[in-house]
């Protein structure tokens, strides 16, 4: 295979000083063989009898919940974990006993239907997972077969010990031990995006002994790996390779984990160590914490209320029943009162002499009879509705991101309605508010600032300050350079080789040379076009290399020891190739905050090129290197204010002697295998990274995502509080805050920080306790001050509400640690909740999660966390709703999230439109569910009062059992899926509407109880009107009187009509679907009546021909129906009319408003209909928003 030549002369491992050859701790290795470290892998020898005996599981992976065999029992078990379902199951069982008021099949049928529907849903979902599994299991990989050739095998057939070969950009099929790669020294690059969400490439390194040519690796036999048992720790691995009598310790450096991807390396050969479910990624697989929405939790409470109502009315009934039954026999016990019931020869259920027992049994019967109060189909309907809602979310075009081809995804359907109740949004910054693609925009070289472009932050700030158009706008437009990703620099003094005419050309040259040389990127030359792209560990670095390329320092080749550039010579202006010999790379680390390379230039001079954070670089400058320090610092400050990330660039020349001494020391440190090796390397590096000469600084922009300011503006108009939790510097964070209109002009800023001189002095003294104490006091004081500030504003505000004072709280990471202290967190939260927006800078992932928890538990309101990286996972899982940005940063956040969107701006639509709708729909749906079941259930109860509470239902068994399943369920589902109070456009236009959800108006107890009351009133109207009109007189011209079956049918028809028409007048959105379902349900009832009535009388019993023969030809039945239906709807209708008149809700007003507008503009063009609001309306709305924000600051 031609493409798989080994890169001769490449020994990348030498370049890296820190990461690669981490010392192993001996302790761990001593455990091998003992418990927990018992795995033995026979390399390239899976048929070894000993290996066969070990019987490790295969590489078959199954993520399904069920198998064909356990599907039925397991899914049934899942079903009956719900209290309501257990109740129905018990009822179904008891219905076989004589206790039951109705026949057993009529109870079982709906239960089976509901359970069956849920099981089908589970099954379909599982089938989808299964299909994914099959796809993964049947992927092909090259495995070394017995004849010594690599041949393709399915993933699932891999066994522990197999030797596999994986090519570039392929996924590893199992956890592999890296043996060798296309590089001579056995390194390879791995992308672990699927595991931890990090996009940068990780370097893996094979043991020297195994990193041999492909041809000889085929003969690699007899190696035995002894290692730890499968576990879920991604970053640890303990094992030893026994090979040719030697032992070689293994570390995570040699492990290639399943589901990570091979990059930048033509191929690798590895031996399978863990397969299938033993792999680290599978061991890590845990279901995300299951979250339940507030509405659902409240719904449970309502179900309990219904249970109590059920018990109360059942108890009342059985008391009456007991009294009546006792009286069936006269006190002397000789005479029967209701002789036609034969109380002398009765069963225990009606025994007058043991009336207490009888009434106890009756109680059980009544529990079953009034079970219709508890909606059997509620749970399944809600689930169906939520799944359909999720489909709508997934399908929404407005939340589809064309560039990345990612639609929004609801990863769970549990939380749809919770989206409509979000009170606080906690957002990550990088990658969430910003794109996380770095652009080189400015630089400062030898005290001169270059770069004319405006950053988004600057633009936004200008806009905020109300400045007119940017002056350089035209120039930028005229910018001839083609747009290059990662490069947004334009300055006529520098581009197109113009820099050579600058007086400081030499320094400019040096500056860009540093950028072109001091990095760890790898060039990737496109064979055809000759264009060069770079693979870099961080986007910043890529931006630097690209910038230097664009400005004439094209880095085009890297070898083990050399870096080659195409350069423009600043004297002659010609293009020349220069090759630098690379001696050492002192890598970037978060503690060092800098990176350096040592190179020998073509002139044979030794150079140390360095770039790093200003905080560490300035102190390393030589005395004579500080020429431009003041200007550069000034520029850096300005850049930071403009929201840019800055790095200081410096260099020094090293003389040969010094280098020789240093190298010796450094190599010594590098080869050490003791614990403090890292510290020693650090110290050694420190020695040479000094006396630097300042060249300048770079400024890279982390661009704001499209539409972020508008989105935040809208959300805060909706009364949603937004907290930004970022790892950035305070200044950067504040500027980003301004840029994305989180902080606004005229907003009072409360800054809480520990950067005060006295604390710094204390820190210098090193007394940790004193520092902590002082810090605590300082934070406490600052919090108090903030409180009094906001309080003062609130009181003065009252009179002059024209210009409400908003507050923005900014707190840094150190202060946050103290503010999150148990003693202060209340005050902190109190202060924060008075502020419109909060920014926490320099916060760690853990702090993010802690803040989220504090807000969630402290306020008791719904929190939403949004983030994109692995560092946001804790926050996402902690919040009520986690939203992951499925952007560039990999999948980790998405995997932990409940919803995934491609861009921050989609959040606006997700909350204001889908959240609002879903909340509304679910809330209405549940209320309506309770209404319809109470209406039905209470007619049964009233009827009991007329049947001496004997437990005889008013209706035929099958009418009752079909009630929840066929005659009333579809309209509710349609309501839950399609209803909308106002259109999506209006939702976005009037963000205030969102408060309906935040304040939980539609699911408040008043409303729920109101609906319940409505149900009970309806049932009374239905029952008493019906029995009085049909009473005892003839109900037809032929003199026939009403009997049990006719009364039942008429009353039941009234119920069906009433609840369906109630639906019709309470929904806001009538499409053909609603019409279809509502009128269809009524139609189905009559259809059912006809079909069921035509069945033989032994089956249909009291329903036999009842509609066709008896009730349909009777005008009074129809008149009763009309009367009852209208009367039962009258209370609700009147209430609504009054409500709209006197206490309209938001959406009422908005809908009305639209209606009138349309009226007024009816004759105008169509665009006027959807046009803007009248000016005074706009003004009033503005006014209201002001009120709202004031209200917020009071709370």
């Amino acid at each position, binding site marked *: 295979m031609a493409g798989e030549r080994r890169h001769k002369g490449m020994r990348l491992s030498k370049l890296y000083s820190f990461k690669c050859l981490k010392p192993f701790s001996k302790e761990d290795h001593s455990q091998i063989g003992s418990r927990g470290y018992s795995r033995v892998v026979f390399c390239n020898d899976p048929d070894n009898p000993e290996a066969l005996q070990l019987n490790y599981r295969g590489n078959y*992976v199954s*993520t399904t919940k069920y198998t064909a065999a356990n599907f039925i029992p397991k899914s049934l078990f899942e079903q009956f974990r719900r209290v309501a379902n257990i109740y129905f199951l018990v009822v179904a069982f008891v219905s076989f006993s004589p206790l039951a*008021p109705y026949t057993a099949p009529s109870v079982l049928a709906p239960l089976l239907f509901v359970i069956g529907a849920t099981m089908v849903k589970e099954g379909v979902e599982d089938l989808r*997972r299964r299909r994914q*599994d099959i796809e*993964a299991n049947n992927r092909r990989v090259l495995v070394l077969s017995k004849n010594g050739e690599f041949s393709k095998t399915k993933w699932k057939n891999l066994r522990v010990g197999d030797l596999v070969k994986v090519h570039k950009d392929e996924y590893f099929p199992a956890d592999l031990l890296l043996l060798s790669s296309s590089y001579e020294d056995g390194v390879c690059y791995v992308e672990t995006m*699927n*595991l931890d969400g990090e996009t940068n490439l990780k370097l893996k390194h094979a043991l020297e002994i195994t990193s041999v040519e492909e041809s000889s690796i085929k003969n690699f036999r007899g190696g035995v790996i002894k290692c730890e048992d499968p576990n879920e720790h991604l970053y640890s691995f303990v094992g030893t390779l026994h090979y040719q009598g030697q032992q070689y310790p293994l570390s995570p450096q040699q492990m290639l984990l399943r589901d990570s991807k091979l990059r930048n390396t033509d191929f690798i050969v590895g031996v399978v160590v863990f397969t299938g479910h033993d792999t680290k*990624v*599978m061991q890590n*697989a845990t279901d995300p914490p299951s979250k339940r929405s507030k509405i659902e939790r409240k719904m449970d409470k309502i179900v309990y209320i219904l249970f109590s109502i059920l018990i109360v009315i059942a108890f009342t009934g059985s008391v009456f029943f007991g009294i009546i039954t006792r009286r069936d026999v006269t006190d002397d016990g000789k*005479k029967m*009162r*209701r*002789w*036609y019931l034969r109380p002398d*020869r009765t069963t225990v259920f*009606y025994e007058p002499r043991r009336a207490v027992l009888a009434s106890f049994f009756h109680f059980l019967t009544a529990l079953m009879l009034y079970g219709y109060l508890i909606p059997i189909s509620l749970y399944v309907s809600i689930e169906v509705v939520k799944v359909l809602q999720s*489909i709508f979310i*997934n399908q*929404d*075009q407005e939340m589809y991101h064309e560039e990345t081809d990612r*639609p929004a995804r609801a990863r769970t359907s549990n939380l749809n309605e919770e989206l409509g109740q979000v009170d606080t949004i906690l957002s990550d910054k990088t990658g969430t508010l910003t794109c996380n693609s770095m652009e080189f925009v400015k630089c400062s070289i030898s005290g001169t600032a270059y770069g004319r472009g405006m950053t988004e932050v600057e633009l936004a700030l200008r806009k905020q300050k109300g400045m007119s158009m940017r002056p350089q706008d035209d120039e930028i437009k005229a910018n001839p350079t083609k747009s290059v990703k990662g490069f947004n620099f334009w300055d006529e003094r520098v581009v197109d080789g113009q820099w050579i005419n600058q007086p400081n050309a030499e320094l400019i040259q040096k500056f860009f040379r540093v950028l072109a040389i001091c990095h760890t990127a790898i060039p990737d030359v496109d064979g055809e076009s000759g264009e060069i792209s770079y693979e870099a560990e961080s986007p910043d670095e890529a931006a630097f290399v690209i910038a230097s390329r664009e400005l004439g320092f094209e880095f085009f080749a890297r070898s083990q020891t050399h870096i080659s550039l195409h350069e423009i010579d600043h004297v002659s202006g010609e293009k020349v190739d220069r090759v630098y010999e690379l001696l050492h790379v002192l890598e970037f680390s978060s503690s060092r905050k800098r990176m350096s390379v040592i190179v020998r230039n073509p002139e044979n001079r030794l150079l140390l090129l360095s770039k790093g954070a200003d905080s560490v670089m300035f102190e390393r400058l030589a005395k004579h290197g500080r020429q431009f320090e003041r200007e550069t610092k000034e520029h850096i400050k300005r850049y930071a204010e403009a929201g840019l990330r800055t790095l200081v660039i410096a260099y020094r020349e090293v003389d040969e002697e010094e280098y020789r001494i240093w190298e010796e020391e450094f190599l010594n440190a590098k080869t050490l295998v003791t614990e403090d090796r890292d510290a020693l390397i650090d110290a050694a590096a420190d020695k040479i990274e000094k006396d630097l000469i300042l060249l300048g600084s770079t400024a890279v922009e982390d661009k704001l995502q499209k539409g972020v300011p508008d989105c935040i503006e809208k959300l805060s108009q909706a009364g949603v509080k937004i907290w930004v939790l970022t790892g950035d510097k305070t200044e950067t964070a504040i500027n980003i805050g301004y840029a994305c209109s989180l902080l606004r002009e005229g907003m009072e800023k409360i800054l809480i920080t520990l950067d005060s001189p006295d604390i710094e002095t204390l820190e210098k003294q090193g007394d940790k306790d004193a520092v902590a104490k002082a810090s605590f006091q300082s934070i406490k004081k600052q919090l108090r001050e903030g409180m009094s500030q906001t309080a003062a504003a609130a009181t003065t505000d009252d009179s002059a509400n024209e210009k409400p004072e908003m507050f923005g709280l900014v707190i840094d990471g150190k202060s946050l640690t103290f503010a999150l202290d148990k003693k202060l967190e209340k005050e902190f939260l109190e202060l924060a909740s008075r502020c419109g927006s909060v920014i926490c800078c320099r916060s760690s992932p853990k702090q993010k999660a802690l803040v989220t928890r504090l807000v969630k538990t402290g306020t008791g309101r719904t929190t939403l966390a949004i983030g994109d990286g692995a560092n946001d996972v804790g926050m996402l899982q902690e919040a009520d709703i986690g939203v992951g940005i499925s952007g560039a940063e990999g*999948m980790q956040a998405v*995997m932990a999230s409940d919803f995934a969107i491609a861009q921050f701006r989609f959040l606006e639509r997700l909350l204001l439109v889908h959240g609002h709708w879903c909340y509304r729909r679910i809330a209405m749906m549940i209320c309506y569910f309770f209404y319809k079941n109470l209406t039905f259930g209470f007619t049964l109860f009233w009827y009991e009062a007329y*049947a*001496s509470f004997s437990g005889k239902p008013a209706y035929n068994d099958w009418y009752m059992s079909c009630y929840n399943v066929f005659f009333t369920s579809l309209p509710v589902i349609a309501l839950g899926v399609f209803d909308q109070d106002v259109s*999506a456009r209006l939702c976005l236009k009037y963000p205030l509407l969102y408060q309906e959800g935040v*304040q939980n*108006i539609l699911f408040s107890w008043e409303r729920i109880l109101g609906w319940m009351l409505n149900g009970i009133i309806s049932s009374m109207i239905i029952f008493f009107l019906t*029995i*009085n*009109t049909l009473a*005892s*007189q*003839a109900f037809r*011209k032929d*003199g026939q*009187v*009403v*009997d*049990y079956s006719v*009364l039942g049918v008429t009353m039941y028809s009234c119920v069906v009509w009433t609840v369906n028409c109630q639906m019709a007048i309470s929904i806001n959105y*009538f*499409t053909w679907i609603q019409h279809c379902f509502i009128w269809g349900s009524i139609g189905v009832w009559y259809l059912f009546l006809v079909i069921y009535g035509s069945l033989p009388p032994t089956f249909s019993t009291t329903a036999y*021909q009842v509609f066709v*023969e*008896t009730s349909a030809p009777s005008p*009074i039945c129809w008149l009763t129906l009309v009367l009852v239906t*209208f009367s039962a709807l*009258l209370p609700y209708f009147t209430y609504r*009319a009054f409500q709209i*008149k006197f206490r309209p809700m938001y959406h009422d007003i908005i*809908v009305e*408003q639209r*209606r*009138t507008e349309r009226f007024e503009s009816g004759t105008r063009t169509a665009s006027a209909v959807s046009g803007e609001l009248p000016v005074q309306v706009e003004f009033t*709305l503005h006014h*209201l928003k002001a*009120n709202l924000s004031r209200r917020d600051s009071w709370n």
Partner: protein
Amino acid sequence: MSSNTASSSAGSGDSSAARKNSKRPKCIDYSSALLSLTLLDSKFTQQELPACKPILTPGWVISTFLIVSVIFIPLGVISLFASQDVVEIVDRYDNDCIPAPARTNKVAFIQGAAPKSCNRTLTVTKRMKQPIYVYYQLENFYQNHRRYVKSRSDSQLRSPKFENQISACKPEDDAGGKPIVPCGLIAWSLFNGTYTLSRNNTPLAVNKKGIAWKSDKEHKFGNKVFPKNFQKGNLTGGATLNPDIPLSEQEDLIVWMRTAALPTFRKLYGKIETDLENGDTIQVTLQNNYNTYSFSGNKKLVLSTTSWLGGKNDFLGIAYLTVGGICFFLALAFTIMYLVKPRRLGDPSYLSWNRNPGGGR
């Protein structure tokens, strides 16, 4: 859920790609798309289906109330007229038909052997056009009691084959080991009062045929099923049946076995197929056999004509008038309210949280 990230990410890639393919262009060429389903499709998934959004504007509210009242009030009047047309004679006889001395212990009398015959005289106050229906009315009789309702065997009634299906009929299931046909408490307690009518001393024929539902006669009660062992148990309930007439012809039984829904009920006894004139007196000779005394139930004899709406009951008419009236009143009230205190439609000054009913926390 998806621990197998590689596979799931690959899977989602596929599905999103598929989704993309199915995407509609954002600007739809309406002229060409109107006919195709794709428009509907995307409108559906984007939740933009054409819809009617009803809102309760004052106009709507007032006109709805008005329309309801305009429909209901005439309906009420018509129903009331229909009810008024009906001539009904009700005679409660349970007390009067007990000889005065026996009234202290009515139960003993009714269970005793004394003759139960009783004469009543009814006066027709308004012309009654035939057919005139004769009902007996029982009150406080729970034919809808669960024990009672269930105590029957539908299959036994239908076919002689199922004669032995008597499990539901206890305790009136068998007599001396032989199944009772028809079994059960309902049949056992069959009403046994009889009425003989005469007008001006000429007998008035009461037609007892055609009083049961046709489907009952044809499908529920078999024409090959004959009463057996009926009322042969240790305790006699109500009427006896002629064992030579099949059940399908025993219309009194069929009527009785169609159980009433409420404790006060009428049952058809027969039809008088001649007109009764105003001032006619009708002598009723009745056998007061049925024991309602032990549970203090009333017994009434009812003669009634029918209108298209059935028997005499003003309730429907009154209810219609009441609801219609309420709606009219509400329409008026709302009109006045809108006039006195008009609110501009969609007046945004109401967009304040303080006014919202649920706004309080």
